[in-house]
Structures are given as structure tokens and as C-alpha cells.
């Protein structure tokens, strides 16, 4: 555990170094700004939570639909996501996630594609019955979207970041507490006419 903690602190120092150097390279690029901050945020988080990671963690693979809006235009590409949760308490976990989506076209001659989304969230669980629980997510994430107008390639890739939140229900099939099935609805971005929601069905495995 001590070794893990030291390694994480080393990562943090490296991240600060990367940030400072990266800032010199290009302070104007917003996407780079997001990436470098996520990098350092993750390193800090991992380094400080390392001592408690040994409690338990889980891995989840899910798939679903992105429900996106850009003003009046609506898109619904399919997407998939991988989530890892590190439990701090029996019902409290810190999650990191990353996912990607397919393309989606509309009759407005616009192609919409989720290049990736990634972020982290605090996961709070509330048991309902022995094999069922509700959970809530509150975090921060980044979504990289490509919009292609009439085949022009414009406006292209844009990165949106902001608070994320959501929740869902989870069951333990076969009465196996290590295997979970869940349905989740999350808002990954919503501001000024640009919305990105994600509804998914996921399979989660818990490790003690």
C-alpha cells in the first residue's frame, strides 16, 4: 500500500511537470486545457485515495444511447462505456469512466459523432431490497463531439466539459453479490442549447 501511495505521489509530481510544460506549448487550446487538467486531477485523486483502494472496486461495461440536442436538432447515436469504481465506504465509491459513440445523421444533413467522453463521479448507493439498489452519480466530465455539416467537415471536433449527474437502478441476478446489472441515465453535458444525455444498460463485476 505504501509503495502504491508513493508511486501515485510520483505520478502527481510528473503531472504537474507535464502541466507546466504543456502550458508553455499552448495555453490557448481549450481541449488541451481540459486534458491536462483531467490528467492532474486524476493523479491527485488516485494518489490521495490509494490507501483506501484496497477496500473493493468494480468494473462495469455498459452500452446504450446518447440522446443529444444541438438547438432544435436531435441525435441519438449508440455508445459504449467502461467504468471503474473504487469503494471508499460500503455505499460510497469514486468512479472514473471513458466511452465512445457511433455516428448519427439527421434529415438536416448533419452528422453527429461522440468521439469520446470521460470523467469521474462520486457514486452513492442506497439499497432498496436485498438484491436491488438505487445509485446516484455526481461528477465532472468531458465530451468530445464531432459535428459535420453537409459533408463539409465543419465545424468539426469540439470539446465540452461540465458537471455530470445521474442515477439508476441495479440488481444482483442469481443472488450473486459480485455480479450486477443496472440501468443508468446520466447527463454528461447541458448548457446553452447543447445537451448530451446517456442512457445505458450495464454489467458490473465487484472485486473484494
Amino acid at each position, binding site marked *: 500500500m505504501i509503495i502504491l501511495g508513493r508511486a501515485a505521489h510520483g505520478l502527481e509530481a510528473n503531472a504537474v511537470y507535464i502541466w507546466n510544460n504543456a502550458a508553455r506549448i499552448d495555453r490557448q487550446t481549450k481541449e488541451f486545457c481540459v486534458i491536462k487538467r483531467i490528467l492532474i486531477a486524476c493523479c491527485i*485523486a488516485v494518489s490521495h485515495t490509494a490507501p483506501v483502494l484496497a477496500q473493493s472496486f468494480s468494473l462495469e461495461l455498459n452500452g446504450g444511447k446518447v440522446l443529444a440536442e444541438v438547438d432544435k436538432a436531435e441525435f441519438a447515436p449508440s455508445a459504449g462505456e467502461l467504468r471503474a469504481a473504487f469503494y471508499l465506504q460500503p455505499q460510497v465509491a469514486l468512479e472514473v469512466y471513458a466511452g465512445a459513440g457511433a455516428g448519427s445523421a439527421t434529415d438536416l444533413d448533419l452528422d453527429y459523432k461522440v468521439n469520446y467522453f470521460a470523467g469521474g463521479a462520486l457514486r452513492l448507493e442506497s439499497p432498496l431490497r436485498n438484491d436491488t439498489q438505487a445509485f446516484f452519480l455526481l461528477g465532472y466530465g468531458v465530451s468530445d463531439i464531432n459535428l459535420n455539416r453537409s459533408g463539409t467537415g465543419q465545424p468539426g471536433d469540439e470539446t465540452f466539459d461540465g458537471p455530470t449527474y445521474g442515477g439508476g437502478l441495479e440488481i444482483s441476478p442469481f443472488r450473486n453479490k459480485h455480479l450486477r446489472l443496472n440501468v443508468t441515465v446520466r447527463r454528461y453535458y447541458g448548457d446553452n442549447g447543447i445537451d448530451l444525455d446517456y442512457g445505458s444498460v450495464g454489467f458490473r463485476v465487484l472485486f473484494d
Partner: protein
Amino acid sequence: MNKVEGYRTTRQVFLLWCLSIWLVACGGGGQDAFKDAVAVNELNVIAIDVQSDNSVIEVGMLENYRALGTVQDDPGNPIDVTSRVRWSTSNSAVASINQAGILTGRTAGMVAVRAEWADLNDSKELEVSNALLQSITIGDIPARISECGNGYQLSATGNYDDGSSRVITDDVIWTTSQLTLASIDRDGVLATFGDGAVDLIATRNDLSGTAVEGRSSVTIEDNLNDIAVSPVNPTLAVGADRSFVATGSYTNDADRVITDSVTWSSDDANVLTISNEVGARGFAEAQAVGSATVRAECDPSEDFANDESLVTVVTPATVNAVEINGGVAEVEVDLSDGDVQLEAYLKLSDGSTGDRVTDSDDISWAVVATISGTGAEVSDVSGSKGLVSFTATGITEIRARYDSDTLGPFTDTIEVEVR
């Protein structure tokens, strides 16, 4: 880990998470680009065109820029997208432009004025000049200016100390030396009310604030012979309106519509009102039953420079009947003709014909009797109401009954003879 340590750790992680969120936050971006792309495709715009009235302006002057979008399905009718595009200039020290497309010239120089909307863009060169205005020339003065005339479009050309000149019609203050005889609106359009000599004046300050005046003397001819008001003696129903037109006849000029140059009046505003408002001159509205005289007058000093029309205002006609095929009693068709369509119209109390109601929801069609031979059938189904079909000769009486929430019931019958 005991319970207390667990809570402490959770609290630390939560605070750490808040810090992480602060670190990650870089603000929004790209929203406008995405929304513009959607808007461009929503309106089906394939190109934009930057337009302005002038390619040269003086330092300190404003210039309105417009952006027109070419619509793919209707390229001949571009739409105004001025407020949607993003305006910029190549050198904001020379000229700046706001998002409403209003440009301000700041210092002398050349700039490109650019409009962008999604990946569409266009630009136009503009010169901001610090040349001093020296004189103004009034142009496009008609060879003949008739009294009680209007629509004479004048122009003003500014002459500058660097030898250049340009049209500044919209940038000068227009007036005349005798406003009782003639006036000029802000767009440089001259209107005359009487005859005589008058000076046309265009004024503008130069960059130093000194007023520069252009002046041109003209003579308004005394050549109006007569004014004719139309329609002549119309009848209007209470609540109805009508636009009157005044036409001037001239000795040595063509007849011209002078509706906007005459003064309109009604001798009984309780019965009929008539407008002298710009853009609505000659527009009359019937107020009550009675009669009123509408008068159009140009030059009060001349007896012939006016005309009148007596307007009778009556009670509005009301619907009092429904008629099949114009009220005829019988319609004859050959057996070989196939189906025949009957038509029903409302009739008004003044004898005029109102709306077609053949297929109205408020009308019902039915066969009343078979008078001889084999009877015909009439449709009462929406979309084909009044359609008569038959398979053999005979005479059939058909009825239409109109009954709406506010009118009726009215009925009419017709005999359809199939030979």
C-alpha cells in the same frame, strides 16, 4: 479502517473531488459553432453575401452592413441573416463593427468587412477616408416638376478635398426653402404642394464640424388641371374600408397618381373617416350609416385643385339564403354524362353572392323525392358533397340545407333531370 476513519476519508475524498472539478473546469466552448451549423442547415443556406450602400465612408461615420443568405431551394430570394452572422473587420483600429452589422469608421485606411456563419463567409472591402467634404451637388432633378407631385427622387453627391466624390443621399439633411410649396423626406424624395420657385437644400457637416450646404433652385410648374378621386361615389357597409386614389391631370405632363400629395378630408367623420397618415393616405373607414363627402385637395388657392366623392354608408349585408347552382330550379344532364356536381353558395341581403359552401361541414345534401323514373343519389360525404350520381333516366328533387352556429338554417332545392 474503522467507521470514524471511513467518514474522514470520505470527507477528504469529497473535498478532493471538488478541487479536481475546479481544476478540470476550463469553461464551455464550441457551442456557437455547433449551433451555427444547425441553423445554417435548418434554413438551408448555402452562401452568404455581404452588402452595404457605400464602399467609402468618412472617419467617424456609421455604415450599415447586411448579410444575405442564399437559400438552396430558392436562390432568387435570399434571406436576411445580418443578425445571425459574426461580423468582424480586418483592422479594428480603422473600423469596428458590432454584431448588428453597424460599422464605425475610426481612422483612415482600408479594411475588409467579414461576415461568418458556420463555415460560410463573405467579405467586402471598405475605405475609411479622412478627406474633407467641400461641397454637395444635388442631382437627378427632374426637367419638369409639377405641382402636387411626389416621388421625385433626388440625389446628393459629396465632393471632397482629395478630388474624390461619392453619393451621400442618405447622409445629408434635406429641406426646402419653402415648406408650404415642397418638402423632401430623409431619403431625398421630393413632394410638391403648390407652384412657384423653391430651393432644394442638402446639408451635412464635414469632419471639422463645419456645415456644408448644397443648394439648387427649381420652379414648380403651375400645370395641374384637375384632380380625380376614385372610386366615384361608392357604397360601403359599416365597418368596411376603402382606399381612395387621387389622380392629377397636367397640362404638359402625364397624369400621375398624387394620392400621397393631396390632403384628404371627410365632411362627416362620424360616418366616414379618412387618413392623412404617411403610408395610409386616402384610407377610409365607414363608421356609421349615412353619407359623407370625401375631398382630396392639393393647392387651396386653386379651385380646380380638388375633387370630391360622395360615400354612402349602409348597414352591412347579411346572409339570408343558400342557393344551389345560382338559384336555378332545374338542371338537365344526359345519362351518358356521368356524375354531376351541384354547387351551393350563400346569398347576401344586398343580392350579392357569398362564400361557396358546397362541401362545408355545415351543409347537408339529401334527395327529397323521386319525381319520375329512377331516382338519382347525392353525396353528403365530406370531399364529395353535392355530387349527384345516377344510373337511369328520371327526375329527382335534391335539397341542400345550410345550418351553422351563427347562420341559418337555409334550404334550397333543385330538380335534377337525367335524360
